[in-house]
């Protein structure tokens, strides 16, 4: 039982199981609100932007981008790392917090995981389309047997590691998310009225019947998946960081990258979760499920990770100075005081300085302020990647090849478009799937009457009969004993 006199409840407003189901399935069953429509149309428009720009840059040529002979990666990879980073919070919340039995995660994990999936989808766009020959790239980058006297891929290349890391990450997260949703989908199915809804949810529910067997399986699978995906939280961004760390480019070639990137990823991930939830809970009035307690907890994490990232920034400088390598030293001086100083300083302010306000309780508990902060964090983290990639590349060894990089509209379009994709998916998610995990949230409802059976031990009963039965615990329990 997740309840104690000293700790405030995770779900407020004295909700009953029935309320929970009703509240959470409301947006799925009622007509979409005006707010939803506006949001959806805007993001759908951005999505079209994405498609158009990807089409042109893959038919006309990457010349449409601002990159050049010296700066071969810029916005594309910046966005890639940015999105992958965002993905991390989801996995962290669902996997690690699950293992640590952090019950407060329950009301946000479903949306966080959804976010992960969508973010990884957005991320995947960039490594795909930054390839000069996207039409064969994905095929040749995979170690498949072939008729070329068997040409093999280069297992030394961090890009190849990426291919594996990202795809694994994506599939595991997807699985995890989907499994978690099954009971809720079943609930929705049972409540569904129209034939189409019935069929679709019927399909996705995988024939869930809420029996003890299914529940037992469900618990086991969740645990296993949590175990599997825990290392992913660390591995994925570690490997992404190796895209840079294994190169010889001054400013990339450093061993601090893995921890630094992971911290950054979690940082940005929570930033994005906050952005989404602060809005979602308002619009869908889930204040009672996603309480300011949740927000506060996340703010603390943001502050912590933010400081870790900041520490990494400073360490880099120390190492550069300590290494005594003039190219390394120049690279970092150039970051701070070179042509792209503004990028560097906006990164510093947004990532290191800004989050420190979360030392103040007011800041941690005021939704609108948190929202603003979360945006700032996202901006900061985008700039971090930009700084790492562009400022390191644009001035490396031979001064003769030093150049400036300026983005083109195509690149901007793709970046904005990726947000389009992300939010389109997220809006659809809010519309058609429960944003909060009904099954789990019920297990952490505060209970009026004392109860010798923690419902959390048999959370399934709540689902199976949730519609009919306000407090099904006992009956079920009795039934079990017959």
């Amino acid at each position, binding site marked *: 039982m997740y309840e104690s006199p000293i700790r405030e409840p995770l779900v407020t407003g004295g909700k009953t199981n029935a309320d929970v189901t009703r509240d959470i399935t409301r947006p799925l069953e009622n007509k979409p609100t005006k707010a939803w429509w506006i949001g959806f149309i805007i993001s759908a428009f951005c999505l079209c932007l994405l498609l158009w720009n990807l089409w042109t840059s893959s038919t006309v040529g990457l010349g449409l981008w601002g990159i050049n002979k010296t700066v071969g990666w810029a916005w594309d990879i910046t966005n890639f790392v940015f999105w992958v980073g965002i993905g991390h919070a989801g996995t962290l919340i669902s996997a690690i917090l699950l293992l640590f039995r952090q019950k407060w995660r329950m009301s946000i994990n479903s949306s966080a995981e959804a976010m992960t999936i969508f973010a990884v989808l957005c991320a995947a766009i960039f490594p795909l389309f930054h390839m000069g020959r996207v039409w064969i790239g994905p095929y040749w980058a995979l170690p498949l047997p072939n008729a070329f*006297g068997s040409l093999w891929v280069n297992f030394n290349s961090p890009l190849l590691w990426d291919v594996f890391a990202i795809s694994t990450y994506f599939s595991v997260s997807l699985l995890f998310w989907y499994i978690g949703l099954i009971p809720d989908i079943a609930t929705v199915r049972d409540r569904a009225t129209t034939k189409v809804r019935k069929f679709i949810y019927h399909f996705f529910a995988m024939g869930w019947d809420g029996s003890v067997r299914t529940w037992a399986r469900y618990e086991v699978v969740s645990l296993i998946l949590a175990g599997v995906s825990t290392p992913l939280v660390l591995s994925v961004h570690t490997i992404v960081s190796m895209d840079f760390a294994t190169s010889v480019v001054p400013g990339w070639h450093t061993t601090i990258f893995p921890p630094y990137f992971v911290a950054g990823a979690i940082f940005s991930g929570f930033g994005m979760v906050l952005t989404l939830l602060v809005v979602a809970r308002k619009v869908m009035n889930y204040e009672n499920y996603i309480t300011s307690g949740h927000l506060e907890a996340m703010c603390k994490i943001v502050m912590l990770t933010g400081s870790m990232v900041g520490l990494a920034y400073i360490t880099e400088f120390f190492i550069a100075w300590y290494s005594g390598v003039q190219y390394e030293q120049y690279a970092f001086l150039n970051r701070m005081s070179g042509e792209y100083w503004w990028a560097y300083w906006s990164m510093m302010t947004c990532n290191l300085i800004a989050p420190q306000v979360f030392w103040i309780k007011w800041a941690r508990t005021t939704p609108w302020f948190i929202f603003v902060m979360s945006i700032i964090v996202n901006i900061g983290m985008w700039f971090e990647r930009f700084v790492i990639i562009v400022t390191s590349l644009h001035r490396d060894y031979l001064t003769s090849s030093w150049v400036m990089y300026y983005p083109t509209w195509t690149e901007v379009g793709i970046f904005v478009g990726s947000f389009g994709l992300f939010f389109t998916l997220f809006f659809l998610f809010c519309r058609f799937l429960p944003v909060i995990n009904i099954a789990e949230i019920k297990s952490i409802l505060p209970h009026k009457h004392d109860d010798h059976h923690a419902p959390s031990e048999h959370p399934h009963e709540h689902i199976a009969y949730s519609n009919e039965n306000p407090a099904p615990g006992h009956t079920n329990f009795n039934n079990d004993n017959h």
Partner: protein
Amino acid sequence: MVKSNFLKPLIIPAFVGLLSFSSVCAQDTGAGEKLFTENCASCHVIEGTKSIGPNLRGVTKKHKEEWLLKWIKNSQALISSGDATAVKLYEDNNKTVMSNFESLSDGEIKSILTYVETAQVSTVKVNPENPEIVNTNELTTAAGNSGFYSNTTLLVLLALVVVLILIGILLGRVKGMMRQMLAARFPDNIELNKPSWYEGKFLPWFKNLNPTIATLVAVLLVAVVAGGAYFKYANTEIGVQQGYAPTQPIAFDHKLHAGDYKIDCQYCHSTASFSKQASVPAVNTCMNCHKHIDAKDKYNGEVSPEIQKIRTAYEKNVPIKWIRIHNLPDLAYFNHAQHVTVGKVECQACHGPVETMHKVEQFASLQMGWCVNCHRQSDVDVANNGYYEELHKKLQGMGRKAISVEKNGGLECGKCHY
């Protein structure tokens, strides 16, 4: 079709070739003989019916050796220099230009001459109705019009299948309706009211399927089929056209020339030994022989239409647009000299038994895998080429005989792609 039995007329004059060639080839091979077959045999026989050039038996008695050397190396020079014998010879052989053999060393020429004198010729009678050759015509004609196995037939068949299936379904429906009507008529007839296989077996089974699994399986099946189809399509797209045997503007028969007459490949594809391309022979090369070989007697006095094509081309000064069979993509660099001369690879190794093909077809897939395989299996001939001297020493040091092309870097991208 013009091609039909165009070869018959060739047969009679073909004796000439056959006589000499077959006999020659019966000999134990010596340098002289080899050179003779490669360079001279297409125009000269040693004795017997006169070919294009005069018969060579006793030639050394007729002319002095140094004169012969001059003449063979560059007859035109000799003629234009106004050498009496030369001019006469030129006139006698109705002004047929003998091609220059500056490439041949005096030694080589001498060896040819000695061979010419020594070789004893056994005359072989060849049956004019040589079945082989008769078959040729059928084959060429067959290949000419794309026989039964064509796309149209395939489409027709497919259409047929679809129609049949539709009919099947229709009948099924009809049967069902009949059945229902009957059932309605006789409610108490168990036979009739027994649920059909569909209602009784299939439906319940289907209903019990796990919807997700079922759908996924269905999707998977479709994917597999589609994928397979695409693979097939893609394969042809990237130019894997093994067995490609287009109909050439002139029904040139490699079996006849390379097989029966044993004309050396490089007599026509002359640049193969020292150039990137093997090169299709220029019309004048064909005319070396076909100035005279016209197979009239097979076409009751008419010149064989196919040969006529060559002659017209020559007179009109219009080259023949042969269709290229072995097409490597431009991204792959292949050099004949490297393989023919240095690697000593037989033409047949890549082009297949051309000497048995009436109509040449692409023998190998010409895919990279195919090339690479050969490079894996075959060895570099380090012993007999000064270029490999160092390597050869090194290997001997290591107590090894040979080194595979692969080990010598023959699998490196830069060997073919640049």
